[in-house]
């Protein structure tokens, strides 16, 4: 910069075209000379290439107001694998999430939805949720004529890799992102002050290998143990649930009681935690079973036959039966078929029988609740799991992240169109204002539901059943809850 200024003052003595050429060369040389020493300067550096980070960059690139911003993505894993991910139609990844219509709409608006493998995305139209102890039930289905204009779809079950792969394709289509994948963040520091610039408040991301990225705005989309959050000195508070979520891809005896046209999601609240079966295309489903760590490790150790029996038992037998079966090291298949004969149940009120589990898809992850004290610091913003971690029982985690991204992009767009520095706290405040309370409430509700249904006996049990039955009977209230869950209801927070 100094070179440019000095040259201009000499312009009176040198002809104009020579001055221009001289200035160009000085500037170019200066750029090359200092490229190694000076960090590369970006408007947005997003650390984390999961659904939240990829959505954020896609939305910024797709929006004409923010498309000129210089953006970078830093991701520890190899994104080429995500980009080229492909599975045959009869195999499904065990990491699936439920996408609300609101999230799907957002993905469509940024042009990513059409890049998903659409025949691997399963819309579902009904939810059956019941109390494992008392059998009290709530059926989320649209009464004839009560469906909203948006249609009867409650949500979409989708493999996470399908989403990230689709986002990457859209990002490539848009172009303009400097991608640093296979890149580990060694540390994050602050910049320096020189004669020309004062970057002491600018975060500098140091990658293994020496590359340095200076960020006007550093976005932490880097998961529950976010290093960006630690760098910003933001605490995340909460507790571990002492539960693990066991996932698996299951093969069913049919394509569901409602057929392909009406796919149904099931969730049964057992005292050890809810067990959920979410529909996938064809005769497949995905399992999310929140249970104690010891139960989880038992389940993971079982043979396919015994594992399948346990899953079927989880939706049909009494909690006492299940408790016993969790003490067996093997042989659950025989135990199940014997106990089934003595257990009355309505076969159409539970999922169809599971007949197989896909190889290598039985896995588990620990469940916890975390909420960051705030989502922003000077030149830092957190989105997704970096900001909050939630119990999976309501299928909201990934959608909260997408909601965060939508809000942050709107905030950045407003800042850009009013000439604000997008990274300063004052510019980021509307993001926190919009998202913090809403996320906090959802985290709290899911937490209380988990605690409420963890009780196996005592006065809470009949009370919660009465409550559930009451909500089931109150049509307008149920419709309100369904709309809230789908994200197309009125904004309460």
């Amino acid at each position, binding site marked *: 910069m100094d070179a440019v200024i000095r040259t201009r003052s000499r312009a009176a003595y040198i002809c104009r075209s020579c001055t221009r050429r001289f200035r160009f060369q000085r500037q170019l040389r200066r750029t090359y000379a200092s490229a190694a020493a000076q960090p590369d300067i970006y408007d947005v550096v997003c650390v984390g290439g999961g659904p939240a980070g990829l959505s954020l960059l896609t939305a910024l690139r797709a929006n004409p107001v923010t498309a000129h911003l210089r953006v970078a993505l830093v991701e520890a894993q190899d994104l080429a694998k995500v980009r080229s991910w492909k599975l045959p139609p009869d195999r499904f990844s065990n990491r699936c999430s439920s996408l609300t219509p609101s999230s799907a709409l957002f993905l469509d608006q940024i042009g990513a939805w059409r890049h998903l493998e659409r025949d691997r995305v399963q819309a579902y139209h009904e939810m059956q949720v019941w109390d494992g102890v008392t059998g009290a039930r709530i059926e989320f289905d649209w009464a004839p004529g009560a469906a909203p204009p948006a249609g009867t779809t409650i949500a979409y079950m989708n493999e996470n890799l399908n989403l990230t792969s689709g986002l990457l394709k859209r990002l490539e289509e848009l172009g303009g992102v400097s991608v640093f994948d296979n890149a580990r963040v060694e540390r994050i520091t602050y910049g320096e002050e020189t004669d*020309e610039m004062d970057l002491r408040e600018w975060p500098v991301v140091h990658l293994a290998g020496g590359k340095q990225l200076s960020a006007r705005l550093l976005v932490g989309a880097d998961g529950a143990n976010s290093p960006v959050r630690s760098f910003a000195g933001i605490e995340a508070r909460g507790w571990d649930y002492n539960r693990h979520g066991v996932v698996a891809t299951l093969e069913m005896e049919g394509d569901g009681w409602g057929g392909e046209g009406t796919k149904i999601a099931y969730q049964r609240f057992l005292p050890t935690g809810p067990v959920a079966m979410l529909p996938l295309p064809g005769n497949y489903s995905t399992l999310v079973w929140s249970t104690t760590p010891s139960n989880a490790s038992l389940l993971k150790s079982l043979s396919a036959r015994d594992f399948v029996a346990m899953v079927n038992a989880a939706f049909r037998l009494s909690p006492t039966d299940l408790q016993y079966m969790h003490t067996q090291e093997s042989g659950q298949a025989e135990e199940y078929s014997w106990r089934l004969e003595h257990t009355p149940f309505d076969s159409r009120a539970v999922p169809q029988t599971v007949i197989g589990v896909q190889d290598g898809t039985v896995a588990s992850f620990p469940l916890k609740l975390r909420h960051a004290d705030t989502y922003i610091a000077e030149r830092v913003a957190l989105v997704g799991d970096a900001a909050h971690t939630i119990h999976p029982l309501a299928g909201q985690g990934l959608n909260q992240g997408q909601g965060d991204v939508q809000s942050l992009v709107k905030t950045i767009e407003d800042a850009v*169109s009013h000439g604000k520095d997008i990274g300063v706290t004052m510019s980021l405040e509307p993001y926190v204002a919009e998202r913090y309370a809403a996320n906090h409430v959802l985290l709290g509700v899911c937490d209380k539901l988990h605690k409420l249904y963890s009780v196996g006996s005592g006065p809470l049990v009949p009370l919660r059943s009465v409550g559930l039955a009451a909500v089931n009977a109150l049509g307008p209230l149920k419709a309100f809850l369904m709309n809230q869950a789908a994200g197309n209801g009125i904004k309460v927070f």
Partner: protein
Amino acid sequence: QPSRTLGTTPRVHHNPSATTHSSPSSSTSSVNETEISHFSALASSWWDPHGPSRPLHLMNPLRHDFIRACLSSSSSRDSTSPTTPTGLRYLDVGCGGGIFAESAARLPTTHSVTAIDPSPTILAVARAHAKRDPFLLLPHNSSSSSSSSSSSSNNNNSNSHAGEPRLTYLNATIETLALPARPADRFDVVSVFEVVEHVDYPAAFLDRVGEFVRPGGWLVLSTIARTWTSWLTTKLVAEDLLGVVPRGTHDWDKYINEGELRAYFEGKGGLWGPPRVMGVVYVPGLGWKEVRGSEKVGNYFFGVQRV
């Protein structure tokens, strides 16, 4: 309140320490030393988002909304210059710490911002703050926030403006600033925000300021109406009770009513088009909101296009 013409007679002001002023034709007719020292004392807190300048930070986005509204209503008589959706040149008069100047320099539609202020103390703060955003120091034909090789200029301005830094601060008053000889070299937007209520001779001041607007360009200012309501809100409540504005910032007697400004510009013999006015109200906790009609009682924006 009785309407006044913006004449050359000095207005009454209640600063006992004020020195007598020379005639309005002097080179410092707009500068009141007491005002300058009051603002210089605020220099260090200018950019504190929770400091005394917070209301200015909150008002700044509305300034851009107002300018956008003015530009999009530009008269079709503006035939002297092609429509420049990009490449606007701004002059910010009385820029202070640079809240508006920096934000204008960042807009993609801006070519450059020249910002002037008589206080060297505040300008030092402005310059130091501008260093914190490398983008502001680059000339227009660089892309985004990275340093890049210069590409051919793609704006419609004459070549003499190519390569100007996006943001330049000058320690000057409007009287000491050199007036570009050719009208086409003058500015697309001249902004005078929260300044005119601090000058002693507003008419002479506006005479001079107006010369810097190129034909077809806009003069945009913001000030406060002189009413019982504005006394209540900007003096009693803001300064004394809530303390959201530093005490002594405003001299109610120097507030100018919208009608007085209209009369002044209309009296310039067809030099200026009909004004655009937007009244705004500050609610602590909620920020600034446009309120139709509030220009009669409180803060307002006033924009005129030079024919």
